[in-house]
């Protein structure tokens, strides 16, 4: 089962896709989110979001600034004010 990942900025929905894993730069340290992660909410620091489409693929790196991440039963949602790349 893949993880549903959404990246949203105030201007638009940047990404909405099913991926294997996302590594999020949380304020208190990076954390990886896989399918079935417990409900979780964290602010994020400015940094790189790594998106792994499949278990073995190279990560797609997205720079994000200002925002927070929420994990619930439907997947991972990252709200970021600025997104680059």
């Amino acid at each position, binding site marked *: 089962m893949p993880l549903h990942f959404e990246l*949203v900025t*105030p*201007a638009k*929905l940047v990404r909405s896709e099913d991926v294997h894993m996302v590594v999020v730069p*949380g304020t208190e340290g990076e954390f990886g989110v896989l399918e079935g992660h417990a409900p979780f909410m964290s602010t994020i620091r400015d940094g790189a979001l790594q998106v792994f489409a499949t278990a073995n693929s190279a990560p797609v790196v997205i720079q994000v600034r200002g925002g927070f991440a929420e994990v619930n039963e439907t997947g991972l949602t990252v709200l970021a004010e600025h997104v680059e790349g």
Partner: protein
Amino acid sequence: MPSLKELKGRINSVKSTQKITKAKQMVAAAKLRRAQAAAEAGRPYATRLAAVMASLAGKVAGDSAPKLLGGTGSDQRHLLVVVNTDKGLCGGLNSNLVKAAKLKAKELIAAGKTVEFYLVGKKGRAPLKREFPTLIGAGFDTSTVKTPGFAEAEAIANELIAMFDAGKFDVAHLVYPTFKSALAQDPTINQLIPVPAPTDAVPLDSVVEYEPSEEEILEELLPRYVRTQLFGALLEREASEQGASMTAMDNATRNAGELISKLTIIYNRQRQAAITTELIEIIAGAEAL
């Protein structure tokens, strides 16, 4: 009675005005589509943020709530943030906004509160200044950028939050147009600061982990929420401006068309009258011989 030449001149001038209004209408129609798409694209962020806010605010309510949520404890000084357009040619949009803002200001003043204005956009300044010459405070100029985006919303929000932290006001209201359709844009007044506590606080299942603590997340989230509100207002303003402009210019084009056909009839009638007079003169001259 204007002469034939004068009439011709008037018809031509109305025709060129019609060309301008027609062009402006088409430009507005094209821009409206883009503005509407932008407003649409901004919605997922706003709804998600509002949902998270609601679930968090319900938990952290009470004395420990941050100032942006709980307020300063008084509601004496009010700030009206009025979002107007920068350009005219958009019908009654700006005057409707100003009317709503005035009404709110009078209501607050009647209730014994002090009111100050913070103006975004150019078009509201003059009419509000005429009515309340001493109450106009700072403002934000959005006319320097082509389409105000999140950067502008951020700048406005930061300034407002700084003013709030400095204790310059207790409550801020946001007055902006909501885009309903190209024909209807309603002025809306929302409380911006302190952030209104969500009424439909959904009791979230408490298994959610927070990192850092709920209070800290909320503290970070509130300015973000204010920014999003302002960004939403700017997007709505953009769509409303184009919609109102399109409708107003459509009316103007139609009126110009009517005026042209009226003037053309008068012109033709006069030309005919001149011809008839000439003929009568010739016939009368021939008969006299």
